[in-house]
């Protein structure tokens, strides 16, 4: 039977990454000199599992590396080694190395061998340094006596040609209580050669005194055949401390007196510090693995709490009951049963709604998944920058859609890094400003309406309005005189312009090209928004607002001719009926509508999607004012229909990508409605108007 180990590797990698996260968070909390038993147990167990799994699934490099880590942790655990800052740092570095090794196993890139070697050298130096009394006394002392009786291996190890073994086997009374069984042992022996056993009943009590659970028979076994001694010893491996056992070559057997069995030789091999041979699957791992997972960081599996699954099963149970009730009613439906039918249908509605809500919640994960990396990052960054930073987190249990979570990770890293690098001042500067030397960065997440809000708040110097303005002028974003009139919010918004960095010194930590514009773009792509508040000397707060899930959207249904479109509710600012006098047509370019002080480009949806509207007259239709990618426009539609939550179906996977549309959904009456990509359609219309949005829309 051959089993492909590939299939378990994904699980192994996932659980190992989780184990590393646990190790990391425990290590970060650990103070030199005061390791709590629980903490050490936790990290030891994680390292131990990673080592065991990596050996099983054929990752020898990880096995070798974690072996040293595990040994050190074991010494810490057994109190032989004190926890020093150096040890904590080394363990943290080791966590990084193993994480890299796993990532490289998963995605097939090369890891920095020099760094691995450096950390490994550090670990080995530590292992050899302190006189961590080598666990020579590891074998329990009561076994010490038997260990002395090491069998002479010279004459016996080789199997006598054509000979066999004489075995005396006297189980201790308790042997059966360990689940071992004389019959099983004999059956195995019989498979090795010609087997014959004689029972010695002398120790057997009278029937009335007999305890059926105790072994009381001794055995003389002769086993003929060319059998290595190890094979025989291996069969008795599990019981050798629960019996008297002698194994002698047949011809010498008569001359020898029984001796209590020693450890079989096999254990000598097991205790030697060898790196075990790889399981057979190891050779074919690299090529297949690369195929099995894409390089993308978005993993395709999800961990769901068992409570959620149980709740689902429960609800499906209720649904089945409702269904059977309804089908019973349907068999002989008479008018007097209409009341019950109505009850059944409303029950069905409730079941369906609950089921929907719960299925959606499966995709939701606590945001701690995204937050978890920050304690480590804050720790490393602040020591690198010579700052004192305390990272506070709250609302870690707030749940967020898995896809959103994966995409919000990088922007968050950027913002936290900025807060520590640019926000929090150096200790001297803080002292001079009359603040505590330790700065605080607070990560907070909470729900508000249908959104989740994530705040990154620091108590640093705050944003420098003048410097941002100066930079904006320098980059030609505004004229030199315009700055004074701008609100703070408008000034801070410049931060999100491409290539905008006010850092006086581009440090090693931040300011390396990936700017706030990317942060904003990523957040916008998720249908979210980011804004900044800041006050000089007191700090800044970046607030990210994200939709709870990407799979469901609050939509405004609009009608254009025969076709229904869905406009995401979050993009709609207002809807209005136009007055002819406010429309300005610019020759060869877009039409504009004067809304209060602003001029809005008008996008005729029927034109964009090549449809026949009720009327092409602007004042007959309605203008839906929308905002996307920071730009506003008015969409001309025939009518506004209802608002409802819609489930987004991808057009790309089911059809093909269509410019100006972000997806489709199926309405209650079974018709398909297309979801307008607001940012995309504004882009299209301002690209000169000649490009038609997907003519496939009809």
């Amino acid at each position, binding site marked *: *039977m*051959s*089993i492909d*180990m590939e*299939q*378990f*590797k994904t*699980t*192994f990698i*996932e*659980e190992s990454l989780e184990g590393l996260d646990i190790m990391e968070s425990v290590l970060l909390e650990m103070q030199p000199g005061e390791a709590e038993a629980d903490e050490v147990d*936790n990290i*030891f*167990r994680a390292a*131990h*599992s990673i*080592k*065991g*799994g990596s*050996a*099983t*699934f054929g990752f020898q490099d990880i096995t070798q590396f974690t072996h040293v880590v595990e040994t050190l942790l074991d010494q810490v655990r057994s109190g032989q080694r004190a926890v020093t800052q150096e040890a904590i740092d080394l363990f943290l570095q080791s966590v990084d190395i193993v994480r890299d090794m796993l990532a490289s196993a998963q995605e097939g890139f090369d890891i920095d061998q020099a760094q691995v070697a450096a950390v490994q050298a550090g670990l080995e130096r530590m292992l050899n340094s302190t006189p961590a009394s080598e666990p020579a006394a*590891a*074998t*329990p002392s009561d*076994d010490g006596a038997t260990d002395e009786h090491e069998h002479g291996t010279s004459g016996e190890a080789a199997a006598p040609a054509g000979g066999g073994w004489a075995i005396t086997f006297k189980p201790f009374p308790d042997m*059966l*209580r*360990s*689940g*071992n*069984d004389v019959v*099983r042992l004999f*059956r*195995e022996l019989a498979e090795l050669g010609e087997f014959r056993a004689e029972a010695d009943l002398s120790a057997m009590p009278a029937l009335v005194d007999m305890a059926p*659970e105790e072994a009381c028979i001794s055995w003389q076994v002769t086993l003929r055949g060319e059998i290595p001694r190890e094979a025989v010893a291996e069969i008795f*491996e*599990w019981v050798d*401390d*629960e019996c008297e056992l002698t194994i002698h070559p047949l011809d010498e057997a008569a001359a020898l007196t029984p001796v209590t069995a020693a450890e079989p030789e096999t*254990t000598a091999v*097991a*205790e030697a510090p060898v790196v*075990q041979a790889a*399981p*057979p*699957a190891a050779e074919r791992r690299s090529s297949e693995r690369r195929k099995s997972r894409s390089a993308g960081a978005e993993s395709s599996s999800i961990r769901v709490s068992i409570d959620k699954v149980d709740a689902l099963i429960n609800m499906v149970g209720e649904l089945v009951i409702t269904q059977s009730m309804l089908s019973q009613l349907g068999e002989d439906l008479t008018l007097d049963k209409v009341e019950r039918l109505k009850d059944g249908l409303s029950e069905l509605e409730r079941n369906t709604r609950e089921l929907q809500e719960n299925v959606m919640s499966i995709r939701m994960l606590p945001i701690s998944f995204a937050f978890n990396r920050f304690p480590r990052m804050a720790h490393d960054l602040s020591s690198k920058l010579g700052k004192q930073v305390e990272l506070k987190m709250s609302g870690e249990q707030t749940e967020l859609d898995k896809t959103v979570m994966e995409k919000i990770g990088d922007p968050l890293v950027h913002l936290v890094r900025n807060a520590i690098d640019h926000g929090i001042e150096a200790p001297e500067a803080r002292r001079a400003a009359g603040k505590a030397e330790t700065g605080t960065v607070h990560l907070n997440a909470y729900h508000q309406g249908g959104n989740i809000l994530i705040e990154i708040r620091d108590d640093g110097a705050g944003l420098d309005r003048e410097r941002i303005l100066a930079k904006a002028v320098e980059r030609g974003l505004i004229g030199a005189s315009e700055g004074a009139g701008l609100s703070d919010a408008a000034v801070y918004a410049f931060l999100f312009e491409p290539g905008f960095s006010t850092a006086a010194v581009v440090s090693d930590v931040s300011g390396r090209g990936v700017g706030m514009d990317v942060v904003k773009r990523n957040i916008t792509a998720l249908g979210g928004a980011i804004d900044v508040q800041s006050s000089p000397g007191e700090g800044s707060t970046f607030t990210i607002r994200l939709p709870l899930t990407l799979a469901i959207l609050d939509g405004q249904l609009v009608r254009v001719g025969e076709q229904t479109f869905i406009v995401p509710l979050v993009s709609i600012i207002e809807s209005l009926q136009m007055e002819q006098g406010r429309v300005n047509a610019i020759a060869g370019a877009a039409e504009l509508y004067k809304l209060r002080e602003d001029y809005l480009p008008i996008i005729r949806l029927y034109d964009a999607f090549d449809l026949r509207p009720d009327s092409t007259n602007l004042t007959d239709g309605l203008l839906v004012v929308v905002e996307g990618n920071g730009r506003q426009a008015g969409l001309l539609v025939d009518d506004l229909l209802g608002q409802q939550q819609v489930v987004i179906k991808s057009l790309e996977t089911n059809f093909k990508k269509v410019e100006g549309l972000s997806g489709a959904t199926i309405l209650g009456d079974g018709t398909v409605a297309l979801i307008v990509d607001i940012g995309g359609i504004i882009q299209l219309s301002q690209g000169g108007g000649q490009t038609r949005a997907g003519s496939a829309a009809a």
Partner: protein
Amino acid sequence: MATILAVDDSASMRQMVAFTLKGAGHTVTEAADGQAALDLAKRQKFDLVLSDVNMPRMDGITLARELRALPSFKFVPILMLTTEGGMNKKQEGKAAGATGWIVKPFNPEQLLATIKRVMG
């Protein structure tokens, strides 16, 4: 074929063990730690228990001891999955009532061979 309780806090090991045993026709129930295994064992009879040693909540050695205290598990084979260095763990396991052990890392073939040893 046997009904087997597989206990390991590592999901990948559980998957591997369960997949292998099911492939050989056994019925497998999984538990993620000793406590979960013990709770299962109090409600159901198993022909064999395979348990990891190092686990949260309840380790494999305590599990073996607790199982042996249950009337229905007095003679049921309990195999510990130990790592190669764990000689003292083997002894501890034996003292707690384990039948024997399988040394990690093992491959599916080795696992089946060992099961065959116990189950015949």
